């Protein structure tokens, strides 16, 4: 027995930090900081609180250890792997013969590239493009918006460029809390003299470090961005040469933003006109600028347009295609970029090759040896609506938790109940498991190996540090066994006969142009990873995109001209407050991991709804009081925190604990992202007993299920 230091990638956010696990015979002995690896995204091995607590959830007592079969809703009996795989494969096969579009597959940004590639391959070989994942709920508008303007839906630069920028415009992104290690580069830039502009409805920890802080109302981003562009164009601060050479659509943009004078924008957004002018001047004249955003910009019914405008702002200032510049959508999961790249989306094959393009389809038909559907599939939220109409009957969920993560939980619950067949593949029991027919226990990320793509398009290899508990198996193994059992037993790319994740990555190299040269051998010998696009094995990878031309068909940036649209639901007499959702630095998404981590739960034990002192006084609410937040879709009990971080009339509530019972599932028409960041609500003070009563209707984030041992 010897203690080993195994280099892994942190399983939490999109920064993709490297760390070492101290492993003794497959058991964790602790972690060590990856100080000695140069060029990684977390320089000097820095880690945030989640990264520091990375071992705790792995040791949770309720880890899934055996495949389970439901006897009735929420009650399970243990079965063997062979039974589980046979049943899943038979059922999927039957749907595939009947109507392949009755199946919906969920990939996962929480697992490696290889299983994600396999799940979309399985879905498509079974005849449907109904495959999606949680990027739909976070950055689908980034993918569609950036694709529309620049031709590819990814961060155009790296953290190094944020460090080198002269101005950093952070909009709808609580950088310090969501990506603490990435925020390091903002502070380094600031120390060098860079200016930081923060636009957020809340005075967040990120805003503490702002030189200019713009506090706009949730959902008024279009007006704010148009207002800034109005000033930049009017004062002739834009990069004329860049706009002439590399952009189209400038005249229309200039016409559209004409009416967005700072005074007009002040009326909509609540941001003082002079601050808008100051922000616009500071941004446009800095010489090198980066725009970063996250959920605050994307999770709107106009998320697609928000992103196009942010990209347009960057383009007219000439902040594209050079070092120290660019747009940086910050991804939430450590492999959400990878899952998108590898085609876990209903409209594209791996490498963003459209399913509607007959040429690309032909390539994959020959590559996989089956006929493929050219019909664009369903997205996450659309699928839930399709269940109600009886169109979708089966779900295969790999590592997702739609009950907590999807907007309008009550609707999701109703829909899931109607499903005929549901498979959940996960590492721990989730509220989604309640509706599962078959549960497949998966190995966690640190318990198996594969490649991951972080927010900077950096592909890294994470090695296996620990042994999975019980009979839990790697995701790639589970999906390939199901693929084989479903009858796809051909050789090479034509089947699912894989012996290791390396085999799968080699297949990805062969069919995904951006990943062409990112071989397992290269990744294993270079721990800092490779930035895609990397078309061939001798290619070093690409740090900054669009140096010569954009990836649009004509090679130019297509500037967006968008008129103002507010949130789908605005406050009225009945629901007078504007609700927005937020998160905590110590918790992660649906709490499946951090909720099982003692050190984190101790520090962030419960959600606190933020309310402005004046509103609180009017309603007689003090910090610590229980309140009921109510929207047209549901009610949520939570304790209040009276604070000036929010504007008057705005309520902010962390969504980790199930606040999505409140949120609006109205969709962006292009990206199909639900508007979880703004909706109308009302609040009332309630007693603790009433709160407890209301709590019963909210799904438990850490559920317990009855399991009969097999």
């Amino acid at each position: 027995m010897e203690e080993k230091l195994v280099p892994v990638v942190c399983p939490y956010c999109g920064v993709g930090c490297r760390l070492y696990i101290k492993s003794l015979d497959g058991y964790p002995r602790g972690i060590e900081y990856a100080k000695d690896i140069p060029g990684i995204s977390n320089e000097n091995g820095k880690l945030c609180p989640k990264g520091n607590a990375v071992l705790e959830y792995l040791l949770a007592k309720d880890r899934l250890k055996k495949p389970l079969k439901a006897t009735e809703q929420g009650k399970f009996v243990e079965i063997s792997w062979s039974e589980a795989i046979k049943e899943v494969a038979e059922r999927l096969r039957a749907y595939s013969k009947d109507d392949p579009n009755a199946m919906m597959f969920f990939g996962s940004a929480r697992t490696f590239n290889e299983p994600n590639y396999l799940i979309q391959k399985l879905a498509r070989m079974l005849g449907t493009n109904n495959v999606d994942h949680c990027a739909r709920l976070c950055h689908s508008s980034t993918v569609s918006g950036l694709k529309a303007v620049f031709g590819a839906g990814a961060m155009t630069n790296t953290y190094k460029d944020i460090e080198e920028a002269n101005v950093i415009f952070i909009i709808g992104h609580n950088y310090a809390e969501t990506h603490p290690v990435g925020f390091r580069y903002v502070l380094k830039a600031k120390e060098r003299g860079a200016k930081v502009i923060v636009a957020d409805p809340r005075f967040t920890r990120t805003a503490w470090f702002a030189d200019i802080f713009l506090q706009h109302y949730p959902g008024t981003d279009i007006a704010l961005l148009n207002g800034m562009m109005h000033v930049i164009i009017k004062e002739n601060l834009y990069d004329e040469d860049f706009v002439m050479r590399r952009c189209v659509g400038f005249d229309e943009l200039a016409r559209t933003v004409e009416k967005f004078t700072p005074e007009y924008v002040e009326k909509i957004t609540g941001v003082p006109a002079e601050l808008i002018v100051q922000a616009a001047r500071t941004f446009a004249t800095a010489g090198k600028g980066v725009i970063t955003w996250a959920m605050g910009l994307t999770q709107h019914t106009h998320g697609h347009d928000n992103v196009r405008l942010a990209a347009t702002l960057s383009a007219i200032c000439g902040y594209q295609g050079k070092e120290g510049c660019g747009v940086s959508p910050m991804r939430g999961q450590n492999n959400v970029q990878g899952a998108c790249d590898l085609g876990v989306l209903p409209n594209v094959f791996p490498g963003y090759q459209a399913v509607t393009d007959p040429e690309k389809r032909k390539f994959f038909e020959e590559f996989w040896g089956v006929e493929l559907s050219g019909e664009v599939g369903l997205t996450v939220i659309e699928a839930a609506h399709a269940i109600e109409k009886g169109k979708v009957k089966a779900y295969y969920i790999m590592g997702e938790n739609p009950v907590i993560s999807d907007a309008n939980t009550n609707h999701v619950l109703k829909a899931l109940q109607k499903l005929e067949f549901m498979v959940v593949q996960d590492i721990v029991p989730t509220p989604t498991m309640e509706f599962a027919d078959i549960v497949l226990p998966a190995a966690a990320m640190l318990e198996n190996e594969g490649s991951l793509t972080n927010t900077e398009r950096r592909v890294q290899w994470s090695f296996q540090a620990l042994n999975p508990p019980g009979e839990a198996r790697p995701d790639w193994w589970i999906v390939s066994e199901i693929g084989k059992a479903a009858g796809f037993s051909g050789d090479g790319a034509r089947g699912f006969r894989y012996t290791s994740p390396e085999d799968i990555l080699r297949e990805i190299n062969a069919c995904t142009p951006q990943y062409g040269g990112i071989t397992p051998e290269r990744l294993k010998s270079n721990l800092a990873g490779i930035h895609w696009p990397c078309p061939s094995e001798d290619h070093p990878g690409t740090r900054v995109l669009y140096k010569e031309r954009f990836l649009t068909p004509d090679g130019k940036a297509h500037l967006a001209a968008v008129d103002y649209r507010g949130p789908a639901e605005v406050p009225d007499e009945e629901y007078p407050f504007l609700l927005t959702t937020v998160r905590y630095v110590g918790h992660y998404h649906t709490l499946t991991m951090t909720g099982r981590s003692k050190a984190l739960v101790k520090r962030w034990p419960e959600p606190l709804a933020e309310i402005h002192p004046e509103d609180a006084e009017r309603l007689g609410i003090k910090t610590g009081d229980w309140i009921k937040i109510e929207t047209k879709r549901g009610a949520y009990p939570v304790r209040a925190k009276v604070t000036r971080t929010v504007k008057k009339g705005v309520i902010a509530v962390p969504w980790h604990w199930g606040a999505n019972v409140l949120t609006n599932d109205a969709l962006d028409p292009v990206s199909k992202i639900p508007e979880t960041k703004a909706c109308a609500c009302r609040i009332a003070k309630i007693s603790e007993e009433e709160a407890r009563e209301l709590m019963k209707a909210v799904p438990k984030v850490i559920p317990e299920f009855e399991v009969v041992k097999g």
Partner: protein
Amino acid sequence: MARKTIFIDFSKCIECRACEVACEREHNGRSFINVFEWQEMAAMALNCRHCEKAPCVEVCPTNALYRDEDGAVLLAPQKCIGCLMCGIVCPFGIPELDVLDKIMMKCDLCSHRRAEGKLPACVETCPTDALLFGDFNDIQRMRRREFTEKAIEIAKKGERISLRAL
């Protein structure tokens, strides 16, 4: 002998509390550094200052508190009688009582990590370098240098502006 300690740059703290979680992991579930939020405007981390004239060391009746070669104030558990005197005289309220073992406990600047040539866990993990470990005077010299470099940079920019104005 150079005394090494943790320098806390409050202006860089983002209240992520990574230091607390790292400390807790390294010290069997107890964190000896705490981050406090100040009126939702700033945060400050605070750990044992390992004072030059440490009142806790001076008052300890059993000499359980002592200084190691890096200058860290450490506690010899076998000598501690849990009289709480160190905690009472500490102006920062640092020493705490371990009720199970009936002895005091406090920040040891990760002596187990320093023995392996590594930094204390809180410093190693701090995402924004708000925590620095080293000789206090060295750190101060570095800060002075950084300040003057920045001042020169600003002066240079000012020169350019005035030249253009001419």
